[in-house]
């Protein structure tokens, strides 16, 4: 187990910068996700940490040790690939034993460790199978076992659940997370799935265009996004243009085209400045009758989502917002409603 430090990491392919000046600290035993759309540099970052790509500049440290120029095989990492990359010509036993053999662990000691890790990933009895005779979920577990059996200092996962069906993916999220907690292994996890990263991570690193936009806990990222891109990428976000009326102690009162409301903010603001308020659909409430702190608008669409109902509402200034109300609300398409903001969950973007 070790701490991972990334300092000023950049990676360019030809003239194209895939990763630009990234700094990141992952504490011992921490589970950190790199989250972003495809092409945001998250996989490149992971591959630099693995030593599969050579950084253009910057440093990577495991604990105190600079590994930037260390070949992959000497980094003591475990990695799980999106395609699993199981060796098709080796049985499950030999796939898992490969890393042990490469590190000089053979014979009964190797057998013991393979058996132990197979037990951990709940695959006992499949030792003699070839990978192609396994289901996708089983292959995933073999890949995980193979990465863990050498007791690496760092576990790297590159979209490991992307090829599984939805049910299995849900199950594996919890499985991987609880296994990681149990082993206390420092983990860097690449995903483009925001709910996956929120469920699994201690902290999330949100990346766009090769740069880090925000590093924070799932709730920070969700309720207090640093940028509009982050707000939009992580779940649904309503963006409301407004002007600051007054601001103190992290709470600002803003005036928008459709009403005045208060908002949390991470920085001091000057009255009169133009800002964008971000409100999650579930932080809005439909109310009957007019209220000074509420917007009013017209319901243009209603979608039943199961536990909630999604209302699309056009405000007076033409802004389309989305409100998630608990089921049973009888408001119908075309009706006029007022919308109330939960000030603790409204957030002013930078």
């Amino acid at each position, binding site marked *: 187990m070790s701490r991972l430090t990334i300092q000023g990491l950049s990676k360019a392919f030809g003239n194209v910068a895939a990763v630009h000046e990234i700094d990141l600290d992952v504490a011992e035993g921490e589970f950190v996700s790199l989250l972003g759309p495809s092409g945001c540099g998250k996989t490149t970052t992971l591959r630099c940490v*693995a030593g599969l790509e050579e950084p253009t500049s910057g440093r990577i440290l495991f604990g105190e040790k600079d590994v930037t120029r260390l070949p992959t*095989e000497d980094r*003591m*990492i475990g*990695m799980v690939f999106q395609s699993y990359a199981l060796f098709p010509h080796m049985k499950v036993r030999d796939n898992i034993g*490969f890393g042990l053999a490469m590190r000089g662990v053979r014979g009964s000691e190797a057998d013991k460790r393979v058996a132990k890790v197979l037990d951990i990933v709940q695959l006992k009895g499949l030792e003699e199978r070839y990978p192609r005779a396994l289901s996708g979920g089983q292959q995933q577990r073999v890949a995980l076992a193979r990465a863990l059996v050498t007791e690496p200092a760092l576990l790297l996962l590159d979209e490991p659940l992307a090829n599984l069906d939805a049910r299995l993916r849900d199950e594996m999220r919890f499985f991987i997370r609880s296994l990681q907690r149990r082993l206390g292994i420092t983990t860097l996890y690449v995903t483009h799935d925001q709910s996956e990263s929120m469920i699994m991570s201690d902290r999330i690193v949100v990346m766009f265009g090769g740069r880090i936009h925000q590093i924070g806990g799932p709730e920070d990222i969700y309720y207090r996004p640093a940028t509009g891109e982050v707000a939009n990428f992580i779940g649904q976000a309503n963006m409301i243009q407004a002007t600051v009326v007054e601001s103190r102690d992290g709470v600002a009162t803003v005036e928008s085209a459709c009403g005045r409301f208060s908002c949390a903010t991470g920085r001091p603001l000057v009255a009169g400045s133009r800002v964008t308020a971000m409100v999650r659909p579930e932080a809005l409430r439909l109310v009957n009758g007019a209220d000074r702190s509420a917007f009013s608008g017209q319901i243009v669409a209603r979608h039943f989502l199961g536990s909630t109902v999604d209302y699309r509402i056009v405000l007076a200034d033409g802004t389309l917002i989305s409100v998630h109300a608990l089921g049973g609300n009888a408001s119908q398409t075309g009706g006029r409603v007022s919308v109330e903001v939960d000030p603790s969950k409204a957030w002013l973007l930078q």
Partner: protein
Amino acid sequence: MKRWLFALPAVLMVALFVLIPYLNIAVMSFRTPSATAIYGPGFTIENYTRVLTDSLYLGLLKDTLLFAVATTSICLVVGFPVAFHLARTNSRWRGLLYAGVLSPLLTGVVIRCFGWIVLLANNGLINQLLGLAGLGPYRLMYNPVGVTIALVHVFLPFMILPIMNSVQSIDPRLGEAARTLGASRARSFARVLLPLSMPGIQSGVILVFVLSASAYIIPMLLGGGQVSTMPTVVVQQLMGSLLWPFGATLALVLSLTALALVGLFGALTRRSMRGVA
């Protein structure tokens, strides 16, 4: 329509142009020689006892197989890196490289042999260049060296193409996975990439071996009568001495020996193919 009917044209082709001629050769190889006809009356095993006891013909068989083994080995060593590179490269020159590999197949084998004669002759291009450096001239043709050079050149694509195919079907992540598990580049190659490219290596080796063992024009032209292989002697027997039964025996012995060696090679490599193909 029965589905087997679709296979009928192929089956007929094989029967007509492969099985029947082979049967004909097999029968011919037991005939007696004749000065006035293609073969004389009655049957004999004399042809076989002659081939299998006469050190001349056994030496010829050995030489022919040595040519084939040498050509195959050189093609494998030279071709594998090319195949590997072609399979993995993203270079924009890829199409050009591919055409380069295929180019030996674009002209007839006779033309290519004359090309080599121009290069390898005692006053040919290579010896002239060596002469400028104060070396040589070396005898590069009308001997086994020239024949082997031409065999390698002509049959190299048959090694490269199947290996390239095999390597292309290997997930590049497999090599990376091996590296993350502590394997050096060399071990990752030996334990993962090489075993997984075995199907291509196997096809390439068999193709080049069989083709070079049965090559006639190349040893003929670049051997210039100084190099004898089974196929050149078979043609001598048929065209020169008009000894059809003995020629048939020689041809069949070469075919069966090559077949046996291919079978042996297949058996030896089967273990390493487990789980791959």
